[in-house]
C-alpha cells in the first residue's frame, strides 16, 4: 500500500509577477491508508493544487512529498512510477479522451505502464465492470457517447491503472443527482474490489457524508483539519465560519438539539437519521 505524506509542503504560483499567490501553505499531513477520504474546501482553498502534488504533477516550492517515506522528487526519473502508484482524475476528465475506441482510451494508462496485453485486458474488463460500461461500448468512439458515459470512460482510464491511491477531483461536477449517485456507487465498487485508498474532492457535503470515512478540510492554503467524518461535521460552527456547509440533515439535528431534542449523536446521513428517529420512537412505544 502507498503511504503518502507531506512535510511543510508549500506552493506559490507565478513567483515574481503581480499575480503571485501561495496556494498551499506549509501543509504537513499523512494520508490514511486504505479508506475513503473526502477533501473539502472553499474555491481557491488550495485543494486542487494540493492533490496535484501527491502524484508529482506539481513540484513543491518548498517542503517535501513522501511516498513510502521517500521524497518523490529525489530522483526525477522515477516520477512516472509515482504517477502509476498515485492516480489522479481531473475535474471534467471527459475532455482528455482522444483515442479511436473506448477500449483503447482506457488502455492508454495501462499501456504506458508497460503491462502485457492480457493484464491490460483483465484490468479494463474489471474496471468496466466496476464503472458500469457495457461490453458493446468498448468498440465505439468515445466521442459518440453521452456526457455521463464519457465521464465514466475517463475515470476508468485512470482506475484501470489500479493505482494504490486514487484521487478524484470533483468527479460528480456538472452531473444530475442520478448521475452523481451512480458515479459515487461506481467508485465504491472499485474501492470494494481493489481495497485501494481513495481521495475524493467534492463541494457537496451530502456526497462526502455518505461516502467518506475521513475528511480533510483546506482553508486558505492551510490544512484546517483532517479527522473522522463524525468529528469533522461535529465542528459545524467552525466549518460555517470558513464558508463551508455541513449536510442539511446535520443542521436539522443541530437545531433539534438547540430545541431540547438531543439525540446525543452526530448525524450526517439521512439513513442514519431515520434509524435514530425510529429507535427513539420505538423506545417511546416501549414505555
Amino acid at each position, binding site marked *: 500500500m502507498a503511504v503518502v505524506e507531506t512535510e511543510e509542503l508549500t506552493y506559490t*504560483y*507565478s513567483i515574481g509577477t503581480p499575480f503571485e499567490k501561495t496556494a498551499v501553505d506549509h501543509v504537513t499531513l499523512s494520508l490514511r491508508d486504505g479508506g475513503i477520504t473526502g477533501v473539502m474546501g472553499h474555491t481557491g482553498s488550495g485543494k486542487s493544487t494540493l492533490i496535484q502534488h501527491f502524484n508529482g504533477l506539481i513540484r513543491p516550492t518548498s517542503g517535501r512529498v513522501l511516498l513510502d517515506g521517500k521524497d518523490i522528487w529525489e530522483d526525477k526519473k522515477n516520477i512516472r512510477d509515482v504517477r*502509476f502508484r498515485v492516480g489522479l482524475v*481531473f475535474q471534467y476528465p471527459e*475532455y*482528455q479522451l482522444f483515442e479511436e475506441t473506448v477500449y483503447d482510451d482506457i488502455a*492508454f494508462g495501462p499501456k*504506458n505502464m508497460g503491462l502485457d496485453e492480457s493484464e491490460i485486458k483483465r484490468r479494463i474488463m474489471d474496471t468496466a465492470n466496476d464503472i458500469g460500461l457495457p461490453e458493446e461500448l468498448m468498440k465505439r468512439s468515445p466521442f459518440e457517447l453521452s456526457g455521463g458515459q464519457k465521464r465514466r470512460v475517463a475515470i476508468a482510464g485512470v482506475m484501470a491503472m489500479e493505482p494504490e491511491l486514487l484521487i478524484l477531483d470533483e468527479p460528480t461536477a456538472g452531473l444530475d443527482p442520478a448521475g452523481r449517485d451512480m458515479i459515487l456507487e461506481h467508485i465504491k465498487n472499485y474501492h470494494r474490489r481493489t481495497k485501494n485508498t481513495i481521495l475524493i474532492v467534492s463541494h457537496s457535503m451530502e456526497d462526502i457524508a455518505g461516502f467518506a470515512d475521513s475528511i480533510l478540510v483546506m482553508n486558505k492554503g492551510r490544512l484546517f483539519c483532517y479527522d473522522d467524518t463524525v468529528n469533522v461535521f461535529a465542528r459545524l460552527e467552525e466549518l460555517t465560519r470558513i464558508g463551508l456547509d455541513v449536510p442539511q440533515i446535520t443542521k436539522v439535528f443541530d437545531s433539534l438539539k438547540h430545541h431540547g431534542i438531543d439525540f446525543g449523536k452526530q448525524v450526517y446521513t439521512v439513513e442514519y437519521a431515520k434509524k435514530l428517529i425510529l429507535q427513539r420512537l420505538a423506545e417511546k412505544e416501549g414505555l
Partner: protein
Amino acid sequence: MLRDITIGQYFPGESIIHRLDPRFKIVLTILFIVMVFTGDKFICLSVGAVFTVLVILLSGIKIKMFLKTLKSLLPLMLLTVLLNLFFIKSGDVLWQWKFLKITSEGVDISIFMIVRISLLLMGTSVLTYTTSPITLTDAVERLLSPLKKLRFPVHELAMMMSIALRFIPTLIEETDKIISAQKARGAEIDSGSFMARAKNLISILVPLFVSSFRRADELATAMECRCYNGGAGRTRLRQLRSAPRDYIALAVTLIFLAAAIVLNIM
C-alpha cells in the same frame, strides 16, 4: 511551464505609458521599430537603448518581466549569433579551425544583432504589457478604418483578433490541464524518447482540437443570442480620445528617431 509565457501578457497599471491612447501607442511602437532598424552603428542603437530604458522605467513594470521575454527567445538569438559569427568572413581573423573562422567584424555584428533584437523585443513588449488586448484591437480597428472604403473587412479582422487574443490564456490553461491529465496517465511529454513524445503529442492535440471547436461553437451561439451581426451600426463603450500627453509622447519619440537618423549619417 506554459504559465511562464509572457509574450502578449497585459499587466494592469496606472503609469503614464498605460494611460496613453492605444492608437498613439501603436504608431509610437512602429516609430520605435524604425528607430532601432534605421542605423548600422552602435551609436544609433544607443539612442534606441536610451529610449527603451526610459519607456520601461516610465511603465513601472518590473525589468524582470522583460528579461523573461528575452529568455523565451534565447534560442532565436543564439542562432542569429552563430550565423553571424561563422558566416561573416571580412575583418581581422580572431580564431580559426579548419573551415570555421571568427573575425572581428563577425563579433561586432553579432553583438550588434543581439542588442538590436533585445531592444526590439523589450520595446515592443511595452505595448502589450501596458495595453489590454481589447483596447489594442479597438485601436487597430480605428487605425485601419480608412481601409473600409476599399471594402477591406476591418471590423471582422479586429473581431477575429480580439477573439484570438481573448482565447490565448484560455487555451494555454486548457493545454496545461490536458497535459497534466495525460501525464497523470503516464504519458511522457517532457521526458522520454523523441518518438514517445511525438506519439504522446496526439493525446494532447486531439482533446485540444475537440475543445477548441466546442468553444468556437458555444461562442458563436452566445454572440448570436446577443444579436451580433457584424460591425455596422455598433457603438462603443470605451471611446478613444487623444490627450495632450499623447502628442508630447509622439514629439519625444520623433526627436529620438531624428537623433538616431542624424547620428547614423554623421
